[in-house]
């Protein structure tokens, strides 16, 4: 099976690095090629890396609470740079405070993310989802 590439990073002024390390490990173990741009990643870095590596998906983490402000406009920037259809997942502790996840999810879906994950998500679920979204069959 050909290896699919994903760009992984923690957006904004966010330095939470532990989940990033684990996602890197887990997606790599699952057979993906992971381009890990690490913490403190800008929207531009996500997009440049995706274009450069011909990636199929952006895996955006935001833990520190500013996710709403940091993620705004990412889909539009993708469109402007010609990768408008790229799959975009986002996860972590997306907003400030303990908020009802359904409403958080809606806000991020409205921003153009394909899937939105609640706090504490284990890697298995997004890996499963990504295989499905990329039409990879698992036998």
């Amino acid at each position, binding site marked *: 099976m050909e290896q699919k590439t994903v760009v992984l990073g923690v957006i904004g002024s966010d330095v939470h690095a*532990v989940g990033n390390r684990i996602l890197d490990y887990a997606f790599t173990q699952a057979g993906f090629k992971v381009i890990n741009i690490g913490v403190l990643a800008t929207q531009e870095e996500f997009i440049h890396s995706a274009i450069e590596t011909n990636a199929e998906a952006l895996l955006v983490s935001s833990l520190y609470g*500013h996710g709403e402000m940091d993620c705004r406009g990412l889909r539009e920037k993708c469109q402007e740079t010609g990768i408008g259809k790229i799959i975009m997942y986002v996860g972590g*502790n997306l907003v400030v*405070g*303990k908020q009802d996840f359904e409403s958080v999810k809606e806000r991020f879906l409205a921003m153009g993310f394909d899937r939105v994950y609640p706090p504490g998500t284990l890697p298995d679920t997004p890996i499963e989802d990504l295989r499905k979204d990329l039409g990879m069959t698992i036998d």
Partner: protein
Amino acid sequence: MDLTVRQMDAEEFQRQRQEVLGQWQTGKDVFFEEAVAYQKSLPKSKVFAEKLAEGKEKGITYAQPRAGVALISEHIELLRFLQDEGGADFLPSTIDSYTRQNRYTEAQAGIEESAMIGRSMLNGFPAVNHGVAACRQVVESVQVPVQVRHGTPDARLLAEITIAGGFTDYEGGGISYNIPYSKDVSIESTIKYWQYVDRLIGLYEEQGVKINREPFGPLTGTLVPPAISHAVAVIEGILAVAQGVRSLTLGYGQCGNLLQDVAALHTLPVLAEEYLAKLGLPKVMITTVFHQWMGGFPQDEAKAFGVISWGAVTAALGKASKVIVKTPHEALGIPTKEANAAGIRTTKQILTMLKDQSLPMTSELALEEEMILAETRAILDRVLELGEGDAAVGTVRAFQAGVIDVPFAPSRYNAGKILPARDTTGAVRLLDFGNIPFDERVKEFHRERIAKRGRDEDRDPSFQMVIDDIYAIGKGMLVGRPRG
């Protein structure tokens, strides 16, 4: 300016000062003499160092929350609530992440958006944007000392404004607020930024104003072995005292094994005093701060109360001077003030119940202490060796060489070669030593302990074990056992 541990010269300080105070418009309201006078006008009950000294004498463990929101009035309301409903002994002002990265324009946007939509869009209090007068308003609105808590590599302007603003304690350091909090900032530059901060506080001290300094002990908060955070704490203590700081609170983040954590609390001031003396630096007041578990928390609030309590128990039995309190919302997001106050009350109930109890010395505890002492000395001695006696220079070289190496740190100035894992009793050991300069006896001890766990779990120690340990407390365990 060449890097050195020695006191900054006055000219260089003044040169930087001009620059720093110009970084954002609120810098122009800082006047040193006026600020000294203001600080001196504060009652003793609002001065960190005074209250810490009192607690140290009486054997009290104080409780302090983390908290900060975007707008002044909400921030004051929050702090008052934590004081009155939580019973906080010390108050914080936790700074937002834009300010921490010196992005004051974005912080300003966050303030405005917060004001508009009526809830804090920032994860902390943007003290620089609010300025000196606003900080004083905060300090005057509460009855206990207030500290700046942040995670800012270049915290010079923040220090100028908040200390002039009446805060009497300042968290952080050139290593502890770099390595866990940035990616591309060199250690050399952050050490210099923080020497400025420490020198500033030295100047206040020379005027008779007591400002306490607190290196950030827990680093990445995730399976950091005591010797590594102790080495960093001692170095930051040295750097601070060399600039004139006279009151230090050294920090340590809970690992979870009682004996190891108590041993860590016992050894931290011992090591600091030892190395300060060794380097001919003056004796200063040293207190300790214990951080309740800084890694991933369980989402369930009842379980979170269990984790909080275990931290409180350890702080009390280890006789920390202060404990930084987590909240039942930890895994989910910045806590509401109610959740934050609840965390404090749970903690204080335990602290007061355990006030007159301590963990008696045993051979097991003595062994943990011995190991932490030997390990930390091994690192520190190599640092001084690398620096040819200069702790600042040695630190930069030690990070280059991986002699100090912080697990899971985002900084590219950190080697990132070591791998920590719990042993079978939950104590944090090293599975991969990277270039940490432990001698064979120490290494054998770590290997043997981790091997025992491997046997208990019938698997070879590996990165999977580390991952299991990272998730463990969140899943209700301490040691990340494989599902059986």
